[in-house]
């Protein structure tokens, strides 16, 4: 199955599962956003950060 086909199923199904209504314009925007973000999100998810010990309650005003 092509990624666009999967998105065509995922987006309406995801919205419907949350009870969010979407018209054609909404779906067109969401589809475009998805095409823009999803490859980068997948890349982010595949980034190996397993060795990064999480900062607990990081103070962003200071160096870690």
């Amino acid at each position, binding site marked *: 199955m092509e990624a666009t086909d999967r998105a065509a199923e995922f987006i309406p199904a*995801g919205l419907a599962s949350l*009870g969010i209504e979407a018209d054609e314009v909404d779906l067109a925007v969401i589809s475009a956003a998805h095409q823009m973000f999803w490859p980068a999100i997948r890349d982010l*998810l595949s*980034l190996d*950060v397993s060795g*990064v010990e999480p900062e607990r309650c*990081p103070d*962003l*005003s200071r160096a870690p």
Partner: protein
Amino acid sequence: MNTLDLPLREQAAAIAAGDADPAELLAAALTRIEQRNPAINAVVETFPERSREMLDAAPAGPLHGVPVVIKDEWPLPWRAQRFGAVELLAPTAPGESGPYRALRDAGAVIAGVGNMHELGAGSTGNISFYGPARNPWNTDRCPGGSSSGPASAVAARLVAGAVGADGVGSIRLPAAYCGLTGLKPTFGRSAMEGHHMAAVTSTIVSGPLCTDAADCRLLGSALFGEELAAGDAVGLRIGVVRDTVSEDVAPEVRDACEAAIEALRTETGGEVREIALADIEAAALAAVLIINTESLGGVAPERLNRLHPDLSPLNRGFLKYRMLLPAAATVQASRVRTLMRRRLAALFEQVDAIAWPTVAAVAPPLEAPLVELPSGTLTADQANVRGTGLANLTGIPSIGAPVGLSSDGLPIGLQLQAAWGRDELLLDAAEALERANGRRWVEALPPLAEAAPTEA
């Protein structure tokens, strides 16, 4: 010269010395807004009576009597913020926001509210409940966002300083597009009280937009609640990254930024070091994911079925799409935040500042905010976040400064980033950069501001 055309600090000095009447200065600012604002839509509301009341009550602070603009992101005692939108999902009300108090206590006078990109969700300023703000350098071009109005207002010399907010570059990006200096403070150093996301945000800060670094220091000191002491940037160690953020940029942007970095090195007697900083694009996406997740804060899905019909189609769709973002990605974004914070902490042992272009290309057309880069055509939003997201993700301060004009007369900006708490060093470095180029770019006027003043 008209007092209104002086830098913020000189306006304040003239008033303090009795050489300028603050009531006349406010009147001149309001007149200029009436004259020039229709072309740029930078200021969306003025309230002369409120401004005059502020002036009447103004203490003898460092900004006594100086008119400024504040972004439509901050509540005022007489006005709730609209966030550039027909409605916000978060409740809002008039009130004394932190930036309002900071300005009031410094003696400044709020002359108007600045336009902004709708819901802060864009880097171009081409979408707003009030209609798009326009770039004074070319009114068919984007002024940048989301602090579009504050930047456009200062660039057009409606006022000499404005308060913006920066969550993923929203001060630095319009500064670059409009030829201004804009400081994104270290997270937590500047006033944030009263912002509708103050309790949940880990990226947004208030900050100054002015023509030059000295004015950012003055206005920034008010927002920080402490004096941002001037020092020097002697021996500045400048780190440059040979990566997408500095390489996948329009050739004339790259040339201008490289020339500026070399001029800064010469001026400070410093050095330029090539440094490695991997995963900058992942960091930018992480910042976007975090701010989008934080902005959801408590919104029930069914609330999205009752969005106001006048909200832009883009934001209607995108608000709904946010609900589909995987939690795993946000968790991963937090890991990337930690990773990048540790990498930066190590890098700032080797260099004092990291430099790269603020934006990859000059201000795009309002009608189609796309940029042509060596890698191809991108939306301006896609390209812009690459260079600015890192500072918001990690909390470090960053400053954008003008370093040239493109062949079609549009500003080019350089960004400098420093370690946590070294906001003052960035101001010092930006001042050194101004000296290095003879203040040519901070004093350059857009065509709109070159128009002969008709006001007193």
